[in-house]
């Protein structure tokens, strides 16, 4: 309850949360609220191609005459899905590996962290591109590529958390009483480590959306005719001389979504940071 109260008091966090709820609702209801839902995929309306924003098409139309607002709304589903699913995978995979590395230690810890170092030695976009090219462009493979880029950071974070908790008295006493490693992990370690992982994952969803948009912009991510925001921006770039709206609004959608995730992630971190908790307890 105290955490909820603190979250509500964090103004920027609340703004981000409201934005996220709205974006999620838009993504969920897009096929019903989009003015021209048939424009989400293959549709050609040459009579209205590259029209500037009007009352009929609030954000204008693209080079195939498709309503840009509808494509952006339908693209919200795609971008959110890619962001959430890829970070879901990377957070799960990274948490398990970080847990094993931190708890078992020794050569396994060294090996896993060196593998994480290798993945983190290359800029995210370059690594993401190399993976996406090998797997061939497409939604499923973008999710795999983004997951493989982000798992090392989660693994390192989890390992650090496990190392700090592993030597605590309640864990040692559990070991002394004969508890199995799995029980200690399940009952003591995971519950105490999960909070920073959740905070980190929330912010990572925004980065995942940015990375998948960049991969699609370059041409190795999501493929046409799907309305992914990076892909829309890339298509719009070819017409920016005569249709400024085509590249502008999809990019703005990315900014708004990533800002929302960053605000919520920052608020969660501020509220759930143990150092801050300690200070608050003193004040009560």
């Amino acid at each position, binding site marked *: 309850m105290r955490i909820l109260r603190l979250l509500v008091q964090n103004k*920027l966090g609340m703004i981000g949360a409201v934005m996220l709820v709205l974006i999620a609702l838009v993504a969920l209801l897009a096929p019903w609220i989009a003015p021209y839902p048939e424009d989400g995929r293959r549709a050609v309306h040459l009579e209205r191609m590259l029209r500037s924003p009007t009352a009929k098409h609030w954000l204008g139309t693209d080079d195939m005459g498709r309503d840009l607002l509808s494509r952006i709304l339908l693209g919200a589903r795609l971008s959110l899905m890619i962001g959430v699913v890829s970070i879901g995978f990377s957070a799960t995979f990274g948490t398990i590996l970080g847990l094993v590395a931190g708890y078992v230690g020794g050569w396994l810890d060294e090996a896993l962290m*060196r*593998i994480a*170092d*290798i*993945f983190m*030695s*290359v*800029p*995210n*976009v*370059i*690594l993401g*591109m*190399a*993976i*996406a*090219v*090998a*797997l*061939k462009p497409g939604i499923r493979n973008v999710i795999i590529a983004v997951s493989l880029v982000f798992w090392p950071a989660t693994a390192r974070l989890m390992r650090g958390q496990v190392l700090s908790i592993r030597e605590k008295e309640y864990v040692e006493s559990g070991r002394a009483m004969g508890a199995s490693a799995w029980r200690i992990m399940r009952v003591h370690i995971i519950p105490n480590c999960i909070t920073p992982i959740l905070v980190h994952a929330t912010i990572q969803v*925004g980065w995942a959306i*940015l990375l998948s*948009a*960049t991969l699609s*912009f*370059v*041409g*190795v991510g999501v493929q046409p005719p799907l309305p992914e925001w*990076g892909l829309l*921006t*890339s298509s*719009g*770039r070819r017409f*920016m*001389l005569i249709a*400024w709206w085509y*590249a*502008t609004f999809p*990019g*703005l959608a*990315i*900014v708004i979504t*990533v*800002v929302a995730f*960053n*605000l919520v992630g920052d608020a969660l971190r501020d509220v759930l940071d143990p150092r801050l908790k300690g200070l608050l307890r003193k004040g009560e």
Partner: protein
Amino acid sequence: MSIWVYLLRRLSILPAILLGLYTIIFFLSHVVPADPARVMAGEGASEEIVQRIAAEYDLDKPLVVQYFLNLGRVLKGDFGKSIHTWRPVSQDLRQFFPATVELALVSMVLAVLLGCLLGIVSAVYRGKLFDIVASGFSIFWLAIPRFWLGIILQIGLCLAAHGLMPQGGRINSLIGFRPITGFYILDSLIVGNWPALGSSLRHIVLPAFTLGITSLGLFSRLTRTSLLNTLQDDYVRTARAVGHKERSVIWHAFRNVLIPIVTIMGMQFGFLLGGTVAVETVFDWPGLGLYAAQSALTADYPAIIALTMLFGVIRMVFNLLADLSYFVLDPRIRQK
């Protein structure tokens, strides 16, 4: 621990990490695709071309043999021939390297100068309108896709403003200019070609700003926070109390903020490299980033392997320099 021991320790793991990186990229490019030769040849390629590519790149040999043959060549700096330029990859890297380094360096300089300036002003005018606007902007700088920012700047400052700024490229092609080192700004200074210098600077401003936007925001926040903390220190209070001018006080406080800034510069440089793919694509900047984007589109695995390893090396070197800067700049760490 002495700096030399630390340096040796860090350098000793570099070959292992590079070997690991090579192994991962080899796995991705040679094991994951069902038929790497067909992927490299492209859709619709004839059987004869696929077989020629398989022979040229040893793709018809056993996997283990391919791994070690390739590794042997990579160790000698031979990454094979690029699929989309049909030139040796090492030649392409040498050609495109200076453009990217020049862009990244100018971007870093812009980010540090503007970021620190913004941070100092925000700290000095804490709570005032400028600080509030700058803090508000800091929410967005991490969320802006660089490719989108580049396009917006092109629309606003190039197209709508009737060519106020050049839309792309490194230099006005009508200016007589022959590069020497490949760093156009440096080359034009060397030969005293002022029109070329002016054109190079005009062409680099927008891509450098776009590339450095995230770092600019980071330096601005870091400067503001560190300066505000430093301005609370006893020596600052004493300086004010004995009557030193405020400008002098702020300058001395800012010097202590430089240590974390210099360190983060090293880490940010590696981060900037990733952004070159999108920025160079938007601004048609003929560097490694654009080369990487084109290699990805054409499934040019020899180039992708080379680029991944090169970017990895550059990032690791700059991370190492960033860590070493702590030893050099902070006397408290040297004494430890």
